């Protein structure tokens, strides 16, 4: 639809009020409560703090339980960066071959990928596998699981994108003497830039926000990720709502920054992925 028509003012007003109430109030509530003193935050109301305790709350949350939040941020960062880096490279390689080569092998592989997209993972047997190879309750174990869970979705995105790259390019590179490895990494991979950005951003947000996998595969405080710490925080500081909301705010900051920088890619990536699924 084109935008030729002039704006519909009553409808615009209604929409803005609706969006304000439904979507902005909860975020405003988080922000305001994170800035209140403990007593004021206990009222749970949506009001302006009489006295800002933002910095004090920030300090208290960071220092809580021997700087557990800092450790959790480091753990989550390692988890996210490592999983996303590996999954991007491996999924791009697989997507390239699966898109270019049509055979019985790739047909079966595509069915398997579909199953990875649809089926819920069997969690306790995964723990058994991790234990058998000695990776249960370790960061590398969790990283491998995250890679496995992200693989199907990422391969599909890469496949769809690579379909738009002319095959003649591969042929030209091959004639110039490029082997498969240099063909892929020196010719094709650089062309994947737009989709790589999409995959990186979307997966970073997913893995950063993942709660279930760390809960099952990496329990324990010394390995806590930000989502686990956030979840446990509630039990530890039951009535300190100001600190709880400061924690929520801090954990939300990295995806928020990602969102502001890569807004367009995030949306197109989500759509591309969902239309396929």
């Amino acid at each position, binding site marked *: 639809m084109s935008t030729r028509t002039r704006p519909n003012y009553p409808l615009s007003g209604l929409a803005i009020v609706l969006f304000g109430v439904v*979507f902005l109030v909860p975020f405003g509530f988080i922000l305001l409560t994170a800035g209140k003193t403990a007593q004021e935050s206990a009222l749970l109301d949506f009001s302006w703090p009489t006295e800002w305790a933002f910095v004090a709350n920030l300090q208290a949350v960071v220092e809580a339980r021997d700087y557990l939040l800092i450790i959790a941020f480091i753990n989550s960062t390692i988890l996210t960066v490592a999983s996303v880096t590996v999954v991007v490279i491996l999924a791009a*390689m697989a997507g390239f071959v699966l898109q270019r080569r049509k055979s019985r092998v790739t047909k079966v592989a595509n069915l398997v990928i579909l199953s990875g997209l649809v089926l819920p993972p069997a*969690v306790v047997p995964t723990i058994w596998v991790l234990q058998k190879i000695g990776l249960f309750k370790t960061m590398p174990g969790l990283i*491998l699981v995250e890679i496995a*869970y992200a*693989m199907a979705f990422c391969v599909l995105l890469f496949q769809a994108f690579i379909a738009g790259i002319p095959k003649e390019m591969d042929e030209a590179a091959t004639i110039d003497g490029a082997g*498969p490895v240099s063909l892929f990494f020196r010719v094709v991979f650089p062309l994947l830039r737009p989709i790589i950005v999409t995959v990186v951003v979307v997966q970073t947000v997913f893995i950063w926000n993942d709660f*279930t996998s760390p809960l099952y595969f990496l329990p324990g405080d010394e390995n806590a990720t930000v989502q686990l710490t956030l979840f446990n925080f509630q039990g530890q500081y039951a009535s300190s709502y100001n600190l709880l*909301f400061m924690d929520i705010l801090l954990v939300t900051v990295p995806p928020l920054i990602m969102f502001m920088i890569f807004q367009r890619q995030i949306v197109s990536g989500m759509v591309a992925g*969902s239309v396929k699924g």
Partner: protein
Amino acid sequence: MTTVTDAVTEAPATTVPEPARRKSPYPYWFILPGGVIFAVFFLVPSVMAFWFSLTRWTLFDQEFIGLDNYVQFFREPALASGLWHTLIYAVTTSGLKVVLGMALAVLLTGPILGRGFMRSVAFFPVLVSTIGVGLTFQILMHPTRGVINQALDLVGITGPAWLVDPDWALLSVAFVDVWQGVGLATVIYMAGILSIPGEYFEAAKMDGAGAWHRFRNITLPLAKPATVSVILLSLIGGLRKFDLIWAMTKGGPGFTSDVMASVIYKQYQAGFYGLSTAGNVVLFLLVILIALPLFWFFNRKEDA
């Protein structure tokens, strides 16, 4: 220049083309590293689940007990009700996401001021930590002091006790799920609506079709691929949902908001690994039973 001539002179022309043509530039081993990780940490556990669900299992020891886990699962109301709750939850959330996602998308593709900003605002909760959203709404939904019920009081409505009322708990979590996820449905619908040629709407307008008729006869049918995506995505997501429910109610009060994923986790926590895995297999079959006919149905309809 020099490298090219070097390569040509170094390799005798008669031997080079043969093996080069034989070997595909797309070797299967490219699939291998990703495939191995996927197989070891996804496929193997999925297949093994069928075996472990038939055992009394401690991760170290297993004793074959046949279908006892399944019998227990369907006999105990606290466990079996999880199956119903999962279905109710998935159908409610995906139904609301279809309706509200479509409505928001129509609104946000229409002649509206500030729609770029509103598009961002609606999408942002998709990216925020589900645990954070769950904890926030747990407090917003406080029966007496929560912001939601206080606002309802102002307009003279007595809100339900949301998460504390056994009749409402599951639905309350479902509403929050919709709040968080409707942005994705909206974006998918916006993509669908924006790909409809504008001439269709103009032609219909010339013929005197009102806004409702244009929506009913143009937007709705032509946005069908988007509807298919939204339904499949939210159904499959809803059937597996765990983190939001766990953060908000832990399946309570009682077992009234327990879904399959939370039952699986509780049985795992309690050390009943075989029973937990049987729950996983049930969920697995449920997803297949729902997804396969849907895939088939939508694909067939699209061909016709």
